[in-house]
């Protein structure tokens, strides 16, 4: 599904990703944990195609294609979805119109005809229920005036609508209370399938109580320094990141 080999990237004058490797197979859920400033969000932004970052070397292939050569929209059309850490408020653009345009542009890319209005509305209704998002929110401007929890639920709602094959969740748990966290995690769990992979980026272990990963990676200083089964997350929670940092420095 996704293969990242020896990726080096950053902003001009500062390298942030320093030799990052990751293999994600279809249906797998990978968690990437790590202290602040280790490059987790930079990684997710690079994968989604944000042009502020410069890739200096390395390879990223996504479903057999060179991801780095694709525009952000083509990455999305190929089935990559980034749930933003800070979803943008876009006044004046209705959530529903925007999703309809997105869905139909993705369908056009796959040589499919635009979705019929009534099928689209049916889909909206069905997917909204998944994240317990109220109908009124779907009709408002994109994220405008949404609470933190509503914004994150809206991200998962969009994910459900666009049916991507790889979902990157960038600190989706940040700013969520326990109820909202449960709703978001339930939504994600319902979307898990053998064809769909997840990369869950998080600072805290608590999200992983709900979205149980197959593999946990620890990222530090721009690369993965430790990988292990889901129990690794619990160990990190107990011992903190200093333990990994120390191990890394000693190595």
């Amino acid at each position, binding site marked *: 599904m996704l293969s990242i080999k020896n990726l080096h990237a950053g902003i001009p004058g500062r390298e942030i990703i320093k030799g990052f490797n990751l293999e994600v197979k279809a249906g797998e859920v990978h968690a990437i944990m790590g202290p602040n400033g280790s490059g987790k969000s930079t990684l997710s932004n690079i994968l989604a195609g944000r042009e502020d970052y410069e890739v200096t070397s390395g390879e990223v292939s996504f479903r057999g294609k060179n991801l780095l050569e694709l525009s*952000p929209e083509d990455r999305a059309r190929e089935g990559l979805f980034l749930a933003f850490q800070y979803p943008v408020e876009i006044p004046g653009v209705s959530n529903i*119109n925007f999703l309809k*345009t997105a869905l139909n542009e993705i369908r056009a890319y796959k040589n499919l005809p635009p979705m019929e209005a009534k099928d689209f509305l049916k889909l909206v209704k069905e997917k909204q229920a998944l994240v317990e998002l109220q109908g009124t929110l779907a009709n408002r401007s994109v994220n405008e005036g949404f609470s933190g929890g509503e914004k994150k639920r809206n991200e998962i709602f969009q994910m459900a609508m666009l049916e991507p094959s790889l979902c990157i969740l960038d600190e989706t748990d940040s700013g969520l209370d326990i109820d909202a966290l449960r709703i978001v995690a339930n939504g994600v769990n319902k979307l898990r399938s053998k064809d769909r992979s997840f990369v869950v980026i998080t600072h805290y272990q608590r999200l992983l109580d709900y979205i149980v990963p197959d593999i946990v990676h620890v990222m530090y200083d721009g690369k993965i320094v430790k990988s292990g089964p889901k129990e690794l997350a619990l160990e990190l929670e107990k011992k903190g990141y200093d333990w990994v940092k120390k191990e890394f420095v000693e190595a």
Partner: protein
Amino acid sequence: MNTAIARPTGIPAHLEGEFKTLLSKTFSSEPNWLKEKRKEAFEKFSETGIPSRRSEEYKYTDVKKIFSGGFTAIHNELHKLKLDHSKIFIDKNSIKLIFVNGWLYKDSTLSTNLPKGVVVGNLANEGLLLHSQLLQNKLNLSGDALAQLNHALWTDGALIFIPENCILETPIEILHIATGNNPVLANPRHLIIAEKNSSANIIENNISFELSTSVIVNSHTDISVGENARIRYYRLQNECKNAALISSICVAQEKNSHFDTNTISLENDFVRNNLDISLNGENCESHLNGLFITDGTQHIDNHSCVYHGQPNCQSNQLYKGILGGKSTGVFNGKIFVERDAQKTNAYQSSKNILLSDDSTINTKPELEIYADDVKCSHGSSTGKIDQEALFYLRARGLGEASAKILLLHAFASDVLNTIRDEELKNYLTELIEKNLNG
């Protein structure tokens, strides 16, 4: 202000002679009071002449350049245009007035079953023949030097009179067409009067048609909104290639009256709009909204002035601009609050998106407040298209072009949403979509 510095060197040499010719020929049969008004206006115009860029009000808009090309104020009616009414009008049910280069056009379709007392006609014939006294009272010499030039040279224009207690549901469309192969200075003049408790919706549309030379359209509109009356005035400046539009509107509001206006400027070369609102009674409300989308070397200048003369009035200005290419824009909004105009609420906002590195906007608020219990504010922002929002939309699969259009449309929608006439709103939404796709 700086008008003292502007010397009257700005009077095109042939204009005085042309004015005399017009007085002795075209205007010769007019009543004396009107000829006197024309002379007085020409004198007032001559004090300053065409404003130069040294005048503060015209600092960013070079009207002298517009008048420096050869032009003539002497021209005749044209009656041989092949107009397709289904394309040039916005609302098929409206009452229609057509003017060509400042003259009434024969195709004007005046509805015969207007409510009692309503007048929708033209100033030069119907106005002077049937409503001379009204014109004598209402045709004042308001506005700046270019408005004075209009007052001296006007040929014709709309006369709209809505009597007391009359609610006119049918919108009135005033269409002005600039046309021909003669570089004329057209001076249409409109007069709109809404008496106590009346209401009307008016659409003023400016276009050019088969225009093979440059034409200056220097129009002036006086609007008086009586006690408890409401006027909605929509102004569209589109498809005016080769024409330079100079338009001044002076609105006088009496107590409890409402005036709402939208100025939408799209495809044109040069536009200067002056919008002066005088809130002369208590509890008046006035909403001034504007949207302009420019490209190429277009120039759009919106000057507004809201005068709060009485207490408890509210005024609200929202102007938005989307500028591309090497186009230039100006927004200058003045709010003047008299000492007695306590409890005034006056707001002003100018927001602009620059799509290119070579486009420019000059925006300037001017607040002059002499009362001490008021709420007045102004805000201005100019920037590029929101890159964060653009990335967000692209990350969901929208192509860059369609994401930009979606964002620009959202930006423009604030102004479009203030339009109450659904027919017009749909027309403009489509027009703007076409323009942005451009």
